[in-house]
């Protein structure tokens, strides 16, 4: 392949897979826009957000929202800020104090836009203040120290963690637990999920954090994208089943033809970066 080529043939397998998935998503979105009924399963963690905000309102305490430890170039942060919009809508409706400390200033700016929009949409722009969302530090444990301090001193009734989290996940969740806050967490970092599951009341596992915006807004196009995700899962399940079948038959029969097919099948999913 020359560097001036307009297509890298080594990545044609990825291109085909991406094209199938994108086509699935676009088709699902179009169908949903056309009015096709789509059922969304209940996500307890997202339903719990309203309960958490309601509890904070009853107790006269704040809701603490933590959008994670990464910048706006991370898709989990974007998902976190999107959920923040939904949370802010609730805090605006219930007139509950919202605290959003951020570890990146770009996240602070974006979160302010999302929260301002939510307060406006809830018809309570008077309740919005830039001071609700502020920058702390980029340093991981400096940020954690601040959040722990906020939890211990201000004792928020609800702590919501949505975004990318690392070693700080358990420190935050255990501190929140110690102050008796209702806690809802969501991250796409598989290594941190057990910590959140152990210490929080509700946890959004993996993909659920990306489904949140569709779940909260119920916008047809957004809900359609969820069906697109399911279509992708169906493709993945089919590929796994086919791979298992081919490989099992190869081992059982010792067939050369199946060995060649198995190798080709594996190549289909090679990344070739």
């Amino acid at each position, binding site marked *: *392949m020359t560097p*001036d*080529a*307009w*297509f890298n043939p080594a*990545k044609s397998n990825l*291109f085909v897979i991406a094209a199938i*998935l*994108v086509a699935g*998503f676009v088709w699902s*979105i179009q169908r949903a826009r056309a009015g096709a009924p789509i059922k969304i399963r209940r996500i307890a963690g997202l339903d719990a957000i309203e309960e958490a905000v309601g509890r904070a309102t009853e107790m006269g305490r704040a809701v603490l929202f933590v959008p994670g430890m990464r*910048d706006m170039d991370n*898709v989990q942060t*974007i*998902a976190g800020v*999107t959920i923040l*919009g939904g949370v802010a*809508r609730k805090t605006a409706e219930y007139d509950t104090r919202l605290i959003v400390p951020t570890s*990146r*200033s*770009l996240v*602070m700016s*974006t979160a302010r836009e*999302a929260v*301002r*929009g*939510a307060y*406006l*949409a809830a018809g309570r722009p008077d309740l919005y203040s830039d001071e609700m969302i*502020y*920058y702390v*530090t980029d*340093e991981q*444990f400096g940020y954690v*120290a601040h959040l*722990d*301090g906020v939890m211990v001193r201000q004792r928020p009734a609800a702590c919501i963690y949505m975004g990318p989290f690392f*070693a700080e996940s*358990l*420190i935050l969740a*255990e501190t929140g637990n110690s102050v008796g806050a209702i806690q809802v967490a969501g991250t*796409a970092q*598989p290594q941190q999920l057990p910590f959140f599951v*152990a*210490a929080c009341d509700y946890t959004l596992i*993996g*993909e659920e954090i*990306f*489904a949140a*915006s569709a779940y909260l*807004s119920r916008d047809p*196009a*957004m809900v359609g*994208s*969820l069906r*697109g*995700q399911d279509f*992708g*899962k169906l493709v*993945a399940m089919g590929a796994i089943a086919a791979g298992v079948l081919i490989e099992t038959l190869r081992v059982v029969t010792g067939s050369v033809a199946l060995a060649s097919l198995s190798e080709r099948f594996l190549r289909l999913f090679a990344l070739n970066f």
Partner: protein
Amino acid sequence: MKTQVPILITMIVGASLVLAMFVPHSPFRTLDEHFSVWFDILACFAFVLGGGNLLKVHLRKVSARGKDWAYSAVTVASFLVMLVAGLFKLGAPSWDTDFIGDGTWFKAIYDATFAPLQATMFSLLAFFVASASFRAFRAKTREATLLLVAASIILVGRTPLGDTLTAWLPRPLEFLRIANLSNWLLSVPNLAGQRAIMVGIALGVISTSLKLILGIERSHLGGVRE
């Protein structure tokens, strides 16, 4: 206009980066690197924004003598000390020395105060792991019991004690040795679960990216739908 322009920029940049993945032709070949550099430049401005916000928030608390204002005073003082030490390279043997080079005040203060404080916060994790495990592993339900048994096998299997305890098992029952059970738990059920989660996450990332590129997802821009 306030949301349309960012959506348009997201659309162009997102689509270009997807193309850059498959097109080796210039300018797509180096697009990824260029966008990373541009993001770094934006992030530099963001440091000023962040620093400014930090000062504004904490100076306001100090001047109002509000609750816990002393913490804000310490924050502002620490920020200014580190800023001056870094900007003027105090203690550096020459102006060419990096501000975090050996002998600089910045490095000395960082090593003497910030690093131990950071280590202290991190070491809290050990205690929190113990308290969270205690709660999670109480065998109140069938799932919790399963978790307790699996965790105990993995914990013991990762220590020399695990090897010693079941070393007497004969070769046909070798798979029952705790170390082997521990490895099996990690590499079969645990890995299968993790991979299932990873597939879901990958599809979620694709879905969110597409929604951003197509302009369907805009609530992060303040465009909350009714």
